[in-house]
């Protein structure tokens, strides 16, 4: 906007500005709210439904969860061992998060800051590996972990989850690092920092949003994914939450209340993570996923 010292032209300018914006921006309100409400109903009814089953007494067909009861939660947590499953899932999720982030950080830095001979091949391998389906690799992976004597240890699931999370994480992190000006690092070297110290002191703090996004993806993915745990862990003590849910669903007589309560328990950590990282999600995506 041009600076206008005298008031008449100022008022003209300010009247014009919103008018022009309204011209292309304005869509009739009902064209926004009507479809959005319809979609919102479709989105929210399923959530309401699971709350309903989890909170009303068994056998009730009431459409309001009243009288409220926590019996289903109590049941799945103790009788159905969801307490143990929860611990296992947390362990797998956190370990996957740490491993994925560290390995992807190292590799992503190499991709962002160096030109080396096999780089193109490495990038190609990363892209291609996105098309390799984990579910189709169950048999050979099972054999490998059997040879390593890691069947029935959470380590097998952690490694498998990390490996399939790694390519996308590395592409994302290298894109985030590319956005940090190289000159900042060089400046730190001039000041006498080693390459590693310069990285820790200058680049790492600027990467925090990116690392949070990548780490959360890794956590949520391994929290939700269930085939690896189903295949590699036959010991019930070691099972994770999604496998527990699958067991509840495929039982001969399905306990719907327990199923709903188990589902809500499964959702809680994910909801917390997403509430926490929401504002970084879209940036994270536009930085990496589409371009990658």
């Amino acid at each position, binding site marked *: 906007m041009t600076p206008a010292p005298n008031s008449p032209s100022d008022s003209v300018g300010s009247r014009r500005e919103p008018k022009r914006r309204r*011209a292309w921006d304005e869509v009739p309100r009902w064209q926004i709210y009507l479809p959005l409400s319809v979609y*919102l109903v479709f989105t929210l*009814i399923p*959530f309401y439904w699971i709350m309903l089953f989890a909170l009303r007494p068994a056998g009730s067909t009431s459409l309001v969860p009243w009288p409220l009861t926590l019996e289903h939660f109590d049941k799945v947590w103790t009788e159905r061992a969801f307490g143990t499953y929860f611990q296992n899932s947390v362990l797998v999720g956190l370990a996957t998060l740490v491993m994925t982030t560290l390995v992807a950080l190292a590799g992503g830095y*190499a991709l962002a800051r160096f*030109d080396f001979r096999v780089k193109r091949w490495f990038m190609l391998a990363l892209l291609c590996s996105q098309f390799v389906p984990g579910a189709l690799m169950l048999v050979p992976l099972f054999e*490998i972990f059997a040879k390593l004597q890691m069947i029935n240890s959470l380590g097998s699931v952690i490694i498998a989850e990390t490996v399939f999370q790694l390519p996308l994480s590395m592409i994302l992190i290298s894109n985030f690092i590319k956005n940090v000006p190289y000159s900042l690092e060089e400046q730190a070297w001039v000041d006498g920092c080693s390459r590693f110290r310069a990285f820790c002191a200058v680049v790492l703090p600027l990467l925090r949003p990116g690392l949070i996004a990548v780490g959360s993806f890794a956590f949520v993915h391994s929290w939700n994914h269930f*085939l690896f745990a189903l295949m590699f862990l036959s010991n019930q003590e070691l099972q994770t939450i999604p496998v527990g849910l699958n067991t509840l669903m495929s039982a001969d007589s399905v306990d719907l209340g327990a199923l709903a309560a188990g589902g809500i328990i499964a959702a809680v950590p994910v909801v917390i993570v997403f509430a926490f990282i929401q504002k970084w999600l879209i940036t994270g995506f536009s930085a990496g996923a589409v371009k990658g």
Partner: protein
Amino acid sequence: MAQAAAVAKPPAPPAPRGRRRGSSTPRGLPYLLIAPAVLLMLGFIAYPVLSVFYYSLQHYNPTKPWRDGFAGLDNFVHAFTEDPLFWDTLGFSAKWVVVEVGLQLLFGLALALIVNQTFVGRAMGRALVFSPWAVSGVLTSVIWVLLFNSQTGITRYLADLGIGSYGTSWLSDTATVFPAAIVADLWRGVPFFAILILADLQSVSKDLYEAAEVDGAGKVRQFLHITLPHLKDAIVLSTLLRMVWEFNNVDLLYTLTGGGPAGETTTLPLYVATTSVDAHNFGYASALTTVAFVILLFCSVLYLRLSKFGGDSK
């Protein structure tokens, strides 16, 4: 880049190391940095892929070890000529991927355009309509099993309104299981597409719309001539990725329908999973996997072409 480095080096000799310690970085550093990733991917992706190819030529079934041994192309011949389920799963995979991703794209685009407008309550609206995206395949199954339950599900209340009938779950009826599974997966998949498209929508320059407005272009023409062309690349690439993902993902169907009723909802990867996990027929499962790889290979080549991998990336 490489050229610039080569040019920059010769003048450096007077102070090759002391000037700044960053440049004294050992030449092997990038290789050291990618080593953990390379080792993990070689051991747990590349090697398994190769063993799948190897097993596909073997009879290999832990429950029937007396049959084990070299099979040649038997497994493939069996799949293509003797196993009607194989062709059914291929057909269902195609139907599933095309319908599911097509609808996700359509609704996702519409949703993104809506929440890209400025309106009161936008942040809240976005958070709510995007929320199912965070829900996993298994949890989606739990939710829709509850909704489709014939006794206490929402289908019972819909039957009161004359939609559907009492008694049978939509998931156990061959006539309704496909649309039911589609709706369940759409619930979670549309927000994903909407988020991707929204991210790209926000980078469209508003000047373009203002210019179009001045030239007298209406809303529809602005959408067709500015918005769509801008979104084209992102839409093509994410659609392709999403198709691969929907093809590969077995969590939802495995737990929602188990592939049933009567194999009506078994995709090829789901068939592989059940053949290996439940039937322990590892050789045959590996042959089916190989077929799936060939299909995926075609998709990856297409993806690399479209994303212009050979072009500018440094």
